[in-house]
């Protein structure tokens, strides 16, 4: 390959996730096959050993996530990938990674319905599961994308956020994004900043506190096998990793786990704006549904309709201020998603006039079309259907 020329490839969404993970420094993958995420495991089973990493197919999704958490503590960048039912199985271990503050990346290529549902059909029904699936109060990072170039970028960003905030990061894609094929320009090494784990500078023989926060909020780590020995637990713990039931320690720890992400919800947010400035009606969408929303907006713009689109790439922590400001002064807000209104509900919570927020959706396994969205728009604008 000519190093001067960009590495342009035609690839599948799941392949873009795998390539981006390798670009971000993935060194350990454990997983269990499930449609529509399986290609991620298949590709990494071949590519990861060549890149000096480790691939293991585990006995189930629970084991997969537990295994990558263990590997992460030895200092490696880790990932697993799954779909709805497997993601449900992982929830307890997601909570563990939150509590123990272990950097890890979990890909959920969503499928339709509860239970086995629609395994090969598109849906975006796991938005709330990503946020609230694990028990107890906590916060979580969830990113998504609508095209494969963004899938690549958000995957790399997911690894960067996991390392920055010592947290599990969920990459919530959908079946269309995972399975469609598109052009992807693979950035040159160094073109996108890769954030490495923050290792402690505390020397051997000096007390190391694995959960002692720096002023900037980051927690330096020490890998298993290094000179600092410490305890990692899912129990409420102090800065030593020592279990505690002290109400003050519990209060501070749970606040820290929530605040470190929620307080940065807007500065961490990734989103895209299309035709926003003079839009009277604002569409809000994400994932593959945002492609139909954008098509509809672009089509109607040609006919003079003042529509705009806010495409969310950060779902959690929910970018409250970004959404609130974007919705200010619009006659209507139309949320486009493939579920029964999981993001629509969040939008209603943050805007000043929730009665102006409407939902254009499908949850029958069929991709939502620009016509589907237009039909809803006409209804709310009183134009009939």
């Amino acid at each position, binding site marked *: 390959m000519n190093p001067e020329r960009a590495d342009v490839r035609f690839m599948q969404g799941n392949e873009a996730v795998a390539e981006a993970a390798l670009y971000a420094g993935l060194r350990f993958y454990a997983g269990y096959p499930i449609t529509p995420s399986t290609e991620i495991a298949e590709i990494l089973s071949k590519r990861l050993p060549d890149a000096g990493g*480790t691939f293991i197919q585990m006995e189930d999704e*629970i*084991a997969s996530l*537990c*295994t990558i*958490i263990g590997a992460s503590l030895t200092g490696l960048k*880790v990932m697993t990938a799954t779909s709805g039912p497997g993601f449900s199985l992982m929830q*307890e271990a997601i909570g563990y990674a939150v509590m123990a503050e272990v950097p890890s990346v979990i890909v959920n290529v969503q499928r339709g319905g509860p239970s086995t549902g629609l395994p090969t059909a598109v849906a975006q029904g796991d938005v709330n599961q990503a946020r609230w699936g694990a028990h107890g109060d906590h916060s979580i990072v969830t990113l998504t994308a609508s095209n494969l170039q963004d899938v690549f970028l958000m995957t790399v960003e997911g690894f960067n956020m996991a390392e920055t905030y010592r947290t599990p990061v969920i990459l919530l894609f959908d079946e269309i994004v995972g399975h469609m094929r598109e052009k992807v320009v693979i950035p040159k090494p160094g073109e996108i900043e890769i954030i490495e784990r923050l290792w402690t500078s505390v020397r051997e023989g000096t007390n190391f506190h694995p959960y002692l926060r720096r002023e900037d909020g980051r927690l330096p780590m020490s890998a298993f096998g290094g000179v600092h020995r410490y305890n990692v637990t899912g129990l409420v713990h102090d800065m030593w990793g020592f279990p505690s039931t002290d109400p003050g320690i519990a209060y501070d720890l749970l606040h820290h786990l929530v605040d470190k992400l929620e307080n940065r919800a807007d500065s961490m947010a990734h989103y895209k704006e299309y035709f926003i400035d003079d839009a009277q009606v604002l569409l809000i969408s994400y994932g593959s549904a945002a492609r139909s929303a954008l098509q509809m907006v672009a089509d109607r713009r040609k006919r003079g309709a003042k529509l705009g689109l806010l495409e969310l790439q950060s779902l959690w922590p929910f970018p409250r201020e970004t959404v609130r400001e974007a919705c200010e002064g619009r006659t209507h807000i139309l949320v486009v998603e493939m579920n029964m209104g999981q993001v629509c509900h969040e939008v209603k919570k943050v805007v000043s006039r929730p009665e102006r927020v409407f939902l254009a959706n499908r949850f029958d396994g069929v991709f939502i079309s620009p016509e589907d969205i237009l039909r809803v728009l006409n209804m709310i604008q009183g134009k009939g259907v």
Partner: protein
Amino acid sequence: MPVKDYLRLRFLPHIWCPGCGHGIVMSGMIRAIEQIGLQKNEVVAVSGIGCSSRIVGYLDFHTMHTLHGRALAFATGVKLGRPDLTVIVPMGDGDALAIGGNHFIHAARRNIDLTAIIMNNRIYGMTGGQGSPMTPQGMRSTTSPRGIADPAFDIVELAKGAGASFVARTTTYHATELTRMIEKAIRHRGFSVVEVLSQCPVYYGRQNRIGNGMEMMKGFRDDTAPIGSKKKEARPDLIERGIFVDEDRPPYPGGRGGTNETTMQK
């Protein structure tokens, strides 16, 4: 080194009940590690949930106290991430064989180089004495007031069947044997299982009127016999102690370079 050099003194006193056998298992682990001459930084201990799993907090190694039943899965990640480290996995019987049964058989099948120590007190202690997959049929627990209906597992047979390359059984009464077996298990390359019959006088002993910790340990002395001993020959109902499997089989390759043998040979 004195035992206390291996302990995190700020975690003490421990949470175990008077008469509990788990402290003897901890002591056996420490002595075994000392005899092998491992440095504390070379050892990782990964546990699940329950009384037994609190052991890792007291040990001055790299330690993980994880989720109920999942210790072997976490340990698999640690071992494959750093194959040069010695990874020991202390678990309870419910932890290892009920919720963790699937991980147990697959870790054995893969022959991952881990040392699984199952502290078998035949009961769920931390939640207050409910039946476990190791509670013998007919015995009482808080969830089997009429006597437990389900048959128990035989850990040794299960581990053998699943492919573990080292399988041993002993008790807390036989403390020096315990140390020796754990030492052999750690030295063994591949998946090693050491079942330790450990007494739970407060929840198991009391409900089943077996007596206090001391009396339960005497029971381990009287009701067990070494493999192939005359005692066993005379009384076939006794539980056998000793090393049942010690095979030299290549452990799971793992490590950063390879994933499994097929990939490596490619």
